[in-house]
């Protein structure tokens, strides 16, 4: 491998309010190299890359990029346009694709002159096809992006960067939405491209893939670069310690015998707007004292399953019962009163009313309760003391119970939701991606509470795209694929991975 330097980040710092996202981070990248940027959630990986791509302006520091001639030149900061011109391409975790355009138009967007009256699509298309052939990445160019699968969308994103002559490609958690097998293919393609001279930085918090596919590793913690090494010299335990600062305490999970059935779904089908939110003939049971993990790649019906159990959508056929009570067509309020606790996937969008106070968000599911209202009027003292009590019990930290909930950090918002859910002694808990985006401490707290609820006799349905999380928590694992749910007996990663991809195991 050549050791020609192609990019260097020099002492980049960025602060958001009082939070230091990056503190004087140095990072070099060489030609043809695959650099893994490793760190737990909130370590500042994405912020660093957003500064590189010009989405954020650093508070201090500079960036040098090699030009076509190999000479290092300073990069204008805060301008995506400049980054694009310098040959930096970024694939965000949330794709930046227009769904109403074809894949080809998405790739061409921004590279054609806006003033020109005619388009030369045939010539440009040939170029895109050439890139597809060289890189091994394929996508249906004429299909609307809205109709593509997640994997295809990701390939369109990468093609977009390559079409703009990216010499440096940044991938932000590229495998988060892929099956293990799809992820492997992606890394094979990356391998092909780096042989062509492309340099890649990929952001990840998954040790396994980092060790398998990168050539060098840099570790970030709390916005500071805490380590850097060649992958060949890396030691898994040492890196894990570097990421979290100490040995990770494994969530200890006792095996206990499941109790009586709490949730029964029989032949539930729910047709959504697309295949991504459809359920087909789902039958499953969750018992008391049991955590059932639903493993699967996102967009395989998890949202429909969660919506049906939240009361947000109703099945077209089949029945759902909770402790023998039919809740097939229950509205959210009826679900709450049937002792179903719901931890929604998108806590900002579905979990809280950000413009209302912390105290109000804590009682929002219990407005019918005489404890908090009388004859239609709010009992403000009861609401306030309830909020004080829950804030203490669940360690919700923020500017106070009268402050708007949107001022809380992600972890504290999740604690608020946990407090609201667990306080009502639910018999069934639906936890949809409950630790996504949380820092280590908050995530551990969520896991502890879920196990505690299980031990206390509740049934838990845990929906997650993170197989390691499911393996760590679930007593029983189901796999969801294309809206169908299958029970599996194995706890073998690769076998579960195959099933997540729809292969019979």
């Amino acid at each position, binding site marked *: 491998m050549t050791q020609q330097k192609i990019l260097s980040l020099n002492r980049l710092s960025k602060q958001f309010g009082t939070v230091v996202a990056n503190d004087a981070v140095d990072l070099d990248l060489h030609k043809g190299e695959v650099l893994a940027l490793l760190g737990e959630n909130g370590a500042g990986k994405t912020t660093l890359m957003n500064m590189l791509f010009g989405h954020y302006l650093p508070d201090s520091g500079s960036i040098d990029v090699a030009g076509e001639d190999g000479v290092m030149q300073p990069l204008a900061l805060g301008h995506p346009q400049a980054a694009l011109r310098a040959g930096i391409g970024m694939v965000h975790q949330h794709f930046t694709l227009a769904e109403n355009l074809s894949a080809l138009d998405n790739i061409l967007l921004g590279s054609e002159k806006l003033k020109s009256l005619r388009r030369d699509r045939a010539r440009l298309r040939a170029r895109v096809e050439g890139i597809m052939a060289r890189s091994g990445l394929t996508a249906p160019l004429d299909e609307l992006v809205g109709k593509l699968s997640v994997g295809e969308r990701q390939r369109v994103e990468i093609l977009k960067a390559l079409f703009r002559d990216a010499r440096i490609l940044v991938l932000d958690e590229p495998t988060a939405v892929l099956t293990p097998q799809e992820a492997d293919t992606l890394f094979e393609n990356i391998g092909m491209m780096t042989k062509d001279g492309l340099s890649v930085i990929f952001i990840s918090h998954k040790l396994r893939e980092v060790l398998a596919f990168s050539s060098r590793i840099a570790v970030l913690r709390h916005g500071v670069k805490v380590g850097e090494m060649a992958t060949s010299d890396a030691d898994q335990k040492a890196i894990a310690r570097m990421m979290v600062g100490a040995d990770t305490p494994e969530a200890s999970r006792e095996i206990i015998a499941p109790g009586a059935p709490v949730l029964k779904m029989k032949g539930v089908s729910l047709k959504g707007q697309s295949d991504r939110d459809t359920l087909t003939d789902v039958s499953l049971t969750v018992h008391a004292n049991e955590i059932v993990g639903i493993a699967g790649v996102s967009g395989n019906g998890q949202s429909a399953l969660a919506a049906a159990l939240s009361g947000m959508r109703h099945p077209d056929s089949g029945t759902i019962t909770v402790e023998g009570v039919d809740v097939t067509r229950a*509205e959210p309020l009826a679900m709450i009163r049937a002792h179903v606790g719901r931890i929604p996937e998108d806590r900002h969008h579905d979990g809280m009313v950000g*413009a209302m106070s912390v105290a109000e968000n804590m009682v*929002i599911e219990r407005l019918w309760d005489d404890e908090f209202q009388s004859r239609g009027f709010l009992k403000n003292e009861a609401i306030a003391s309830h909020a004080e009590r829950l804030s203490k019990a669940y360690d919700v930290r923020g500017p106070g119970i009268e402050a708007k909930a949107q001022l809380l950090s992600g972890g504290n918002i999740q604690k608020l939701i946990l407090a609201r859910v667990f306080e009502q002694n639910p018999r069934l808990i639906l936890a949809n991606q409950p630790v996504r985006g949380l820092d280590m401490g908050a995530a551990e707290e969520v896991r502890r509470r879920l196990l505690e609820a299980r031990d206390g006799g509740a049934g838990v349905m845990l929906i997650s795209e993170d197989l390691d999380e499911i393996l760590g928590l679930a007593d029983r694992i189901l796999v969801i694929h294309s809206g169908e749910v299958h029970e599996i007996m194995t706890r073998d990663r690769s076998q579960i991975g195959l099933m997540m991809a729809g292969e019979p195991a």
Partner: protein
Amino acid sequence: MIRIEPRVAPGRLMTLGVPVLSAVIALVLACIPLLFAGANIATAYAEMARGVFGSVFSFTEVLTRATPLIFTGLAATLAFRAKLWNIGAEGQLYLGAMAAVAVGTGLFDLPGVLLMPLIIGFGAAAGAAGMAVPAVLKTRFGADEVVTTLLLNFIILIFVQMMLEGALKDPMSLGWPQSSPILDQGMLPQLIPRTRVHAGLIIALLAAVVAQFMLARSVWGFRLRAVGENAAAARHAGIGVNRSLMSVALISGALAGLAGVSEVAGLKGYLTADLSPGFGYTGIVVAMLAGLSPIGVVVSALFIASVFVGADSMSRAMGVSSYLADLVVSMSLLCVLIGGFFARYRITSTKPVQGAAS
């Protein structure tokens, strides 16, 4: 390099200061059209001030003018708090007025203690019914209520004209399209002798206080706020979003209907097709200037009413078009919108980092 960052929490000073400042800026901006019209600026402002504060009578005119604006401002405030875009207060006002003359001009010959509540009740119900239509179209069919309420305003106004030439026409009016007068005992009483201020103002103030209290302290208000701020989360938390929207739609319509009742049964005595010079639309400005606070509506309605009364008297004295008032009102809406932005966000400019050659 300019960046927009949200403020952590807008201060109380900001929330109060922005509307006041916006109103002042809009008044100052009125210089431009005044210059355009060739008027002496100082004299013009003096005339406006005299029109408002010149005498007790002129100030009572402001109160009279503010009365329907408080009602329509409240109608907009409650609906907008739930993110229900009721732009139909103008039409609902006419429905309320029409109901008032339908029951108040002789259909029931009742004593005042019975007739007045009857007129008020019918007017409110008619306004509510007027808003029920777009609310149902929204919740049942997903039809955008902005467009339906706007279009209904035109339909209702034409309907009023039809009624004034038909069923509601005063046979004594010698061909003028106007209704019979409301029976004397049905008229809302005068508050101050020899002025036009009437009991409608008391009802409007009461409505503002009740609305403020219900919004802050009732479960209904809690639900309404939750639906307006985040309908998805409200629904997830077990709040019946459509039910909340329907209830606020009816109350918003009823308040707009009361504006019509108070104009007909408090001021004019009979209905004509030019009863409202756009009170319904101006109510939106009143609500926005009040920062969607019911008590604030009273203050901003007084301000807007002063602008109208002041501009009217200035117009009479100096020959400058009284459309100046509409101009000031629309400018204060735009100013308060922009001001609201600066209350919520901070614009920070950061110096380009050294080495940034672009």
